Every structure is written in structure tokens, then in C-alpha cells.
């Protein structure tokens, strides 16, 4: 029996509800030997900024209990490099592309969004207003009004679906999600990494050169599931859930909490085929439990 896995994120149609977490899947071409991108629900590529960024010095990553801390610092070649060097590979596949966009001012976000729109470089734009690894006010998602400002600035320059990616590092994520929705966001994705640090007791130093980093992986799944549940009770736009998803069971938990789609993040480092295998696993779950449509799961746990 065939089950329906198709979901919509604003005007974007995803063939399966599984995309990739930005920054955990490169720009698609790195895994060309392994992954047929057309089997993904969407490809969400690494953060792309207005100008090229070198990123933070090493050590940039370390392991923690059931998690990973990273402080990559948004290393990327900039928007023009993306359009010239990365986009052609991605466009060989019949798959929607979500481009993750950080910025240091609403104008930065709008600039990159405009270039993506003009160049046909994206099918949706994910506003990375929640990266904990870069200083100088990049963390717009700590305040409802800053969130709204960025969303509105981008809305003004593009018709592409806008996804606001929110931070768990806040007292209450609900008003921020509401602000994003009210300002015109077509979807909310959450969560970005949880801020933290690690110390090397032997060397008596921070483990990361940047001192602090963003925590991802199974350790943060309880935090992410609650963020999804709470935001799902608050907004009407769809949610892309992520944070510690390692397998289809984890993904089903996010759907049950209220996510319409999910992203495979850190798990790609272990298995770059994860997003495809998770989609297959969701289909299995639906069949085994007598469902015919993934929408039957979305928000089913109250």
C-alpha cells in the first residue's frame, strides 16, 4: 500500500518530509559518490553570506556526551561563489533547494535573498537568525522585534518561501515564532544549536578555539522536541523540526510533536544517506501503524 509522504512548506512541495540541516550536508556535491539528491525532500545547503567568510580557527568541533559542539563560524565562499560554483551541481537534480542565509544586518539578508531570487539560486530561503557561533548581533532570534525586522526586510525583496530558523537559547521561543509568522515567514525551522562549551581538564583550556560552540546531536533532542511542540501550539505556519534526529523513530517523534517536515543534521556526519533512509523509515512506520498519509502524524501528540 502506498503512503503519502508529500508535504508543503509554504508554496514549496517536498516529496518526502525530510531535508538536511544547513551546515551538515555541505552544498550537495561533496557526497556525489553516495547520495542521489533527487531522493531528498529538499536540500538545505550550508550558510551562504553576502561576502566570503573564512570561518573560525581550529579546533572547531569536539564531541560531548551524545552530542557534538561546533564553532565553524559560517565558513563559505559568499553568495556569488554559491551561484557560480555550487548551484550548477545542485540544479542537475529534481529537488528543491533551500539556501540558509545569515547576515549582520537586515540589509545583508535582503541582499542575499535578492541575489538568490534573481539568479534562481533557491526554491526557499532559510533565515539563519540563530547561529550561536558568530558575534556582532547575528543572533536576531533572541528578540521578537529583531526577528520580525529581518523577516520583513527579506519578504520585501522576494516571493520565495521564507523559513525563519529559530534559536533554542531563549527564555520563551513562542513570542519569537509568532513574530516571525506575523512578519510574513512561511515556515519556522527549529532548532539551531544550543550554546555550550567544553573544557579540556588535562590541558586546562577550552576545547574549541572560539571558546563556545553550538551543541547538536541526540543530547539536544528533548530540547528540540519541546521547542517544536510549543511553537506548533503557537503558530499556524508549518514547522521544520530538527535537533538530534538519528533515525526514523526520532523523526516520527518530531512529526508527532507538530513538525510538518524534519531535517537530518549531525547524523549526516555518520551517514550521509540518513535523510533518504529516514524518509523510507517514516513510510514504513505509517504502513505498519495503518496510516496512509504523513499528515495523520503531524501534531498527533497533544
Amino acid at each position, binding site marked *: 500500500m502506498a503512503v503519502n509522504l508529500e508535504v508543503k512548506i509554504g508554496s514549496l512541495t517536498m516529496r518526502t518530509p525530510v531535508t538536511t540541516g544547513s551546515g*551538515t550536508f555541505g552544498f550537495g556535491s561533496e557526497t556525489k559518490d553516495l547520495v542521489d539528491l533527487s531522493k531528498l525532500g529538499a536540500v538545505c545547503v550550508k550558510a551562504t553570506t553576502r561576502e566570503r567568510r573564512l*570561518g573560525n580557527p*581550529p579546533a572547531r568541533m569536539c564531541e560531548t556526551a551524545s552530542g557534538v559542539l561546533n564553532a565553524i563560524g559560517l565558513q563559505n565562499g559568499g553568495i556569488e561563489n554559491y551561484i557560480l560554483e555550487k548551484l550548477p551541481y545542485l540544479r542537475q537534480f529534481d529537488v528543491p533547494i533551500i539556501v540558509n542565509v545569515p547576515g549582520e544586518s537586515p540589509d545583508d539578508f535582503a541582499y542575499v535573498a535578492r541575489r538568490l531570487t534573481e539568479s534562481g539560486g533557491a526554491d526557499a530561503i532559510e533565515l539563519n537568525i540563530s547561529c550561536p557561533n558568530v558575534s556582532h548581533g547575528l543572533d536576531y532570534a533572541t528578540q521578537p522585534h529583531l526577528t520580525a525586522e529581518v523577516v520583513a526586510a527579506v519578504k520585501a525583496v522576494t516571493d520565495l518561501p521564507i523559513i525563519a530558523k529559530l534559536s533554542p537559547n531563549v527564555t520563551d521561543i513562542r513570542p519569537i515564532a509568532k513574530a516571525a509568522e506575523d512578519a510574513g515567514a512561511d515556515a519556522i525551522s527549529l532548532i539551531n544549536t544550543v550554546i555550550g562549551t567544553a573544557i579540556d581538564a588535562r590541558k586546562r583550556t577550552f576545547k574549541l578555539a572560539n571558546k563556545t560552540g553550538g551543541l547538536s546531536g541526540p543530547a539536544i533532542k528533548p530540547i528540540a522536541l519541546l521547542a517544536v511542540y510549543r511553537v506548533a501550539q503557537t503558530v499556524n505556519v508549518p514547522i521544520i523540526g530538527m535537533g538530534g534526529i*538519528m533515525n526514523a523513530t526520532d523523526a516520527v517523534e518530531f512529526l508527532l510533536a507538530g513538525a510538518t517536515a524534519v531535517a537530518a543534521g549531525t547524523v549526516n556526519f*555518520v551517514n550521509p544517506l540518513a535523510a533518504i533512509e529516514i524518509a523510507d523509515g517514516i513510510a514504513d512506520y505509517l504502513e505498519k501503524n495503518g496510516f496512509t498519509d504523513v499528515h495523520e502524524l503531524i501534531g498527533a501528540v497533544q
Partner: protein
Amino acid sequence: MIRKRTATIVSVQALAAPGHYVLTFDDPETARDARPGHFIAVGATTPANAGSSILRKPFSIYKVDPDAGLCTILFSVYGPTTSTMALYKPGDKLDFLGPLGGRVFDADPQAAVHHVMVGGGYGVPPLNFLAKTIKAANPSAKVTLIYGARSANLLVGDDGLREAGVEIIACTDDGSLGVKGRVTDGLAPLLAPPILGAGGASGGACVYTCGPTPMMRAVAELCMAHNTPCQVSMETPMPCGIGICVGCVLKKADGTFSRTCTDGPVYPATEVTWQ
């Protein structure tokens, strides 16, 4: 061509060096494609350790037997991955991605140079592979392995080299075997004239090094001081091994950050910065 594999383990053997093992698995494609400097990323997760350490861990290819379709790695036990690997039995499966590495050792077996491998710890296995590869292509090539450890019983990775005609110089901190001192003490005499000859690469030494960072740094700086070409194989932690996390970077001399997994792991010493 990177593959995701579940290969059958043929043998796991404890070495005399405490906590060290060699593991051989059956994978004809990897045995055929792997070059010295290539590595694999092993995910050793069992129901008993699910969740503790989630990342794969990189291990250099130590030996290949393309005819038998076998590959071997050598490892020492530290954390969850290597502890689990030490428990593997013949017939168990090895879950890995490989062969990995964008730039491997670049040696010309026919060149009239002295190929000098300088290794420490689990840096020795890829040099063993390189030394044998050079010797197989040119039996009269002059190849030397200098390797070091705290004590003789910790020297690993020299398997089959003597038989292949590779000269071996052991260096031990406690003098229990070979030169008492560090690998640089073993290396320095080979770099000084007359062996360096007229200077420059041709007729001189080519150095290939892999091991702990302080060791590689000392080797690289010694080589640069002697104008001797040196290739270093970086062993930075590699969260993904396939270029998608950008977590494994090395700061290059030009100030940019290079992914050691796909842009390396082997670099000319001149490109590397050491912190």
C-alpha cells in the same frame, strides 16, 4: 569513489604493543582503490554503545592485498570506537566510509631520491603502506623508515618492511631499542650532507611524515631548514571525513582554512601552519 560499506571482518589480532590491534576486512574495491594516505571512517556502534560517541572515527589504511581483496588497519584503544573494535571477531561487520582523503602521498618511485618515512604511533601504518608501494614499483629505490616511541614495546607498524628491503631506524625515548632519542635525532643525520648531496630534491631526501602533531612539526621544520621536501599527513580530528562538516580544518600558510579530510590529509610541509 567513496563507498559506504559493511565489510566482513577477517581477523582482529592483538599486537605485542599493549592496547594495539590489527584488523583485516574483506573489501575488494577498497583493496583495489586505496592509495597510501587514504583512510576509512569507522562507525563502531552496537546496541550496547548506541549514543555514547556518535561520530565515525578515521583510520589509515595500513595494508592492502588487492588479489585477496583484503585491507588492514592498525589501531590503539582509546575511546568508544576503538574499544568496540577491539571486541570484534572474525565474521563481524565493519561499517565504514572509504577510501577517504582528497590528497594522498605523492611519491615518485623512480626518482633518484632517498625516500624517508618518519612516523610515530598510529602514524606509522600509512607510511608502511607507502614504503611498500614505492618498493613494489621500484625494488632498487632507497627507502628508510624512522619511527619512534617511548619504549621498544610500543613500536608498531613495521610489519613486512625489512623483507621488502626498507631500512628501519627505531628511536626510543628510553633507548630500549635503536637510537635513544626522538625521530628527529634519527632523521637529522640523513638530511645533513653528504647524503643530501648537491642539495635540492634530486639526489637528496624526500621525507613523508605522519604521527603526533608536535613530532610532525619538528620533522617539517627540520626538513624546511635543510631545504628537503616533506609531505605531512595531518591527523586532526575528523567529524565527518567527507568534506561536509568543515570541522577538521588546518590553517594554511595563506591564511585560509583547508579541510584536512578532502583537501588533505597530506600536505606539502610548506603549506602548513602549526599552532
